[in-house]
């Protein structure tokens, strides 16, 4: 039950913060740009809307996860508000889980709100429902959760700035993996080939959670691929949660 109260408090705190409002405005602004750009496209306005819109949605959710996640626990330690909570019958892991759940709630609201706006634009421009659209929404949410869990872990073992830097590096390199496979260097260099092929086993391969091309071109994606990508994302989330819990239990709050 304590996890719920910590999560609720975190949700309300972020909900009232100006950072979230700014990022939400950024997301809405990007969606508006999407709408304007789609007006200049000939006949495929709804596809352009969906393409840029999903990209903006993904970027907005990842940005919130990155910046708010980096200070999620650090701020509690720096402001020492953590003392007021963990001196109560609240375990460190309950506190950590509650904080993460609170931010997860914010991410969900953000993704859902922007998606509703996007879908309205998409429908107005003649777009039709595709079974992969809800899946892409789910993967964007999963991706932002993964970003949050990574940045929280690194913020616990370093500081907010280093955590943002490392997470951003992992996010960009993770997304680049599929693109690298299409380059000549990948085919010619054995080292690069081995590195890219094994990357998803040593670091989160974000490209596995990106199904945008399938949504845009209405290509078929079978259930097993969708579920395996989901479990892949969940695996990394659980791994980073366990690592964060371990660090949290050993941390000195002096």
């Amino acid at each position, binding site marked *: *039950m*304590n996890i719920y*109260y*910590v999560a609720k*408090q975190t949700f*309300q*705190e972020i909900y*009232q*913060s100006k950072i979230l409002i700014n990022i939400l405005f950024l997301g809405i602004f990007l969606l508006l740009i999407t709408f304007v750009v789609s007006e200049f496209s000939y006949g495929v306005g709804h596809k352009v809307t969906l393409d840029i819109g999903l990209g903006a949605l993904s970027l907005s959710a990842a940005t919130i996860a990155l910046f708010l996640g980096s200070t999620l626990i650090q701020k509690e330690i720096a*402001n*020492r*508000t953590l*003392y*007021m*909570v*963990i*001196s*109560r*019958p*609240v*375990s460190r892991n309950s506190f950590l889980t509650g904080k993460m759940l609170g931010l997860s709630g914010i991410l969900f609201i953000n993704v859902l709100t922007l998606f509703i706006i996007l879908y309205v634009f998409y429908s107005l421009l003649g777009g039709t429902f595709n079974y992969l659209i809800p899946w892409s929404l789910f993967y964007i949410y999963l991706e932002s959760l993964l970003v949050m869990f990574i940045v929280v872990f690194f913020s616990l073992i370093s500081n907010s700035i280093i955590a943002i830097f490392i997470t951003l590096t992992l996010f960009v390199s993770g997304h680049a993996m599929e693109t690298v496979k299409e380059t000549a260097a990948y085919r010619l260099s054995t080292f690069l080939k081995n590195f890219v092929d094994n990357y998803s086993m040593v670091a989160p391969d974000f490209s596995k959670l990106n199904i945008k091309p399938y949504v845009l071109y209405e290509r078929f994606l079978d259930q097993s691929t969708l579920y395996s990508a989901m479990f892949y994302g969940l695996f990394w989330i659980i791994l980073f949660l366990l690592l964060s819990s371990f660090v949290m239990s*050993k941390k*000195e*709050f*002096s």
Partner: protein
Amino acid sequence: MIKFENVSKSFQDDFWKKPKRVVNNLSFEVNKGSLCGFLGANGAGKTTSIKATLGFIHIDSGQISFDREMGKTPMEIRSRIGYFPESPYFYPHMTGHDFCMYLGQLQSIPKAKILERMNYWGERLAIAFAFEKKIRGYSKGMLQRLGFVSTLIHEPRLVILDEPLSGLDPVGRKEFKDILIDLNNRGVTIFFSSHIVSDVEEICDGLVVIRNGELFYSGKTEDLLNKETTKNLRVKFYAEKIPQDIQNSYTSIKNRDNFHIGTIPLEDKDKLLQSLLRENGSIHELILEKQSLEEIIYNTKKTGEVNL
């Protein structure tokens, strides 16, 4: 209620530096039902000891244990402790009401009960009027009061306070001290650190004094005061000359117009009184020279025993 047994704790400022021992082999006990003061200079290890008690930091060696009635698991124990940090920390976006409600809920107290206790302590600490205001608008004194309400919201059996009286005006300090005494009278064990020695002396029956992370004194405040009492009487009397019987033991401080101010050993009291009666003198003051805790500390500082 709390027992420290050979507790040691070191901190390493950075990777290349040697760890610095902040608490060294510290052993003491805070008795159940006592109001115990915790004294020590800045950097003596008071806050570190309190943080170790609450599990914020892990000790290197030794053991910190609690009375059986506090519970078996760390969660049970913490549910019966009220902790008040040096500068209470709050979520500025919350109102005082929301903050107390949040902490109360973390203690699994029903809402109605939280409200009842909030109103009670809010009225007693004169902060109830600000419960609906955002904490970011509170003054330091108001924050201190709100922090105290949140400390007591779950009716703890043990209250641990880190410098609770710092930053309060004399009226606020008096109110806080009265509440601490009242709580103690209700059976709550109180352990609090302070720099204001006179406050500790005024209300505490037990005392723990540490120096450089090591124990200097642990026991009853009264015992330390008695131990350090000089057994001298400060006297002010009227007489034409210093009576013969006490001439050897009398130490003069000031004389004017046959008024004499000085000190005599306690055992010479009767000799002085009898002499004055005999020689038509009169006694104006007879006070047992008793040092305050602060004076004891300063005196022992001179001899190098205490460094507060």
